[in-house]
């Protein structure tokens, strides 16, 4: 599993690639949290577009990052989820804490638009 980062304003975009399981999620989690702190980001976008395998560790990863961004009143978005990833996230009801977008571009646009009033968390796609 590899991860690359991009910052747009206060949004940390984390692009995961490879297989996400309990083994790989530990290192990935630490890397994301470290980068989030270093760049003093507020929001996190997790891109799963290049994730070739994911089990429920992915849910743990999103939940963990949700707790992290909440401390700074940030939000979390997931993008590029394939059919299997979507099924797992659906089972976990992840859309109550993270919004899902087709692409990073759309997620960024939603972050930039979204005011405090938006009921971001309750919305699903």
């Amino acid at each position, binding site marked *: 599993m590899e991860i690359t980062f991009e910052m747009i304003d206060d949004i940390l975009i984390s692009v995961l690639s490879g297989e996400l*399981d*309990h083994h790989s999620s530990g290192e990935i989690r630490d890397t994301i949290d470290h980068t989030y702190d270093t760049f003093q980001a507020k929001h996190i976008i997790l891109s799963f577009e290049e994730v070739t*395998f994911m*089990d429920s560790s992915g849910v743990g990863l999103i939940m963990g990052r949700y707790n992290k961004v909440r401390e700074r009143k940030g939000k979390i978005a997931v993008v590029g989820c394939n059919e299997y990833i979507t099924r*797992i996230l659906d089972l*976990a009801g992840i859309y109550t804490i993270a919004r899902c977008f087709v692409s990073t571009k759309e997620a960024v646009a939603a972050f930039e638009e979204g005011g405090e009033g938006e009921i971001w968390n309750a919305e699903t796609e």
Partner: protein
Amino acid sequence: MERRNRIKLEMLCVSENEAIARNIAAVFVAPLDPTVEELTEIKTAVSEAVSNAILHAYGAEKDGSIYLEMEADTSGKITIIVEDRGIGIEDVKKAMEPLFTTGDSRERSGMGFTVMESFMDKVQVDSSPGKGTKVTLIKSLDRIHGF
């Protein structure tokens, strides 16, 4: 492959073996001409069961083994057993509830058993405290497209 087949495996309880175990399951199932969907579902369920053994079964010592048995019958029914000789589960019914976890609740989702149940036809968990846990995953491949 039309004959009944079976392989048994024993592996170390190290997290690298999560990927090895699910890829071995894929190797075992591949000759039976599964759909991509079936293959992904089986790999995911095996990954969950093996991760659980690695994460929950042996506590701090971590030098136990995981035992896998994969069987295919002539009708395309796949049975995969993932077994450990670890601490076992006190209340299996509760453990299988969505979002229930005894792991680090900020990082574990408690969705492992739920994913297994959603991705396989049948999941059976036999466990008793101190004796270990046996998870049986069953799925019948849709053979209509096959031979």
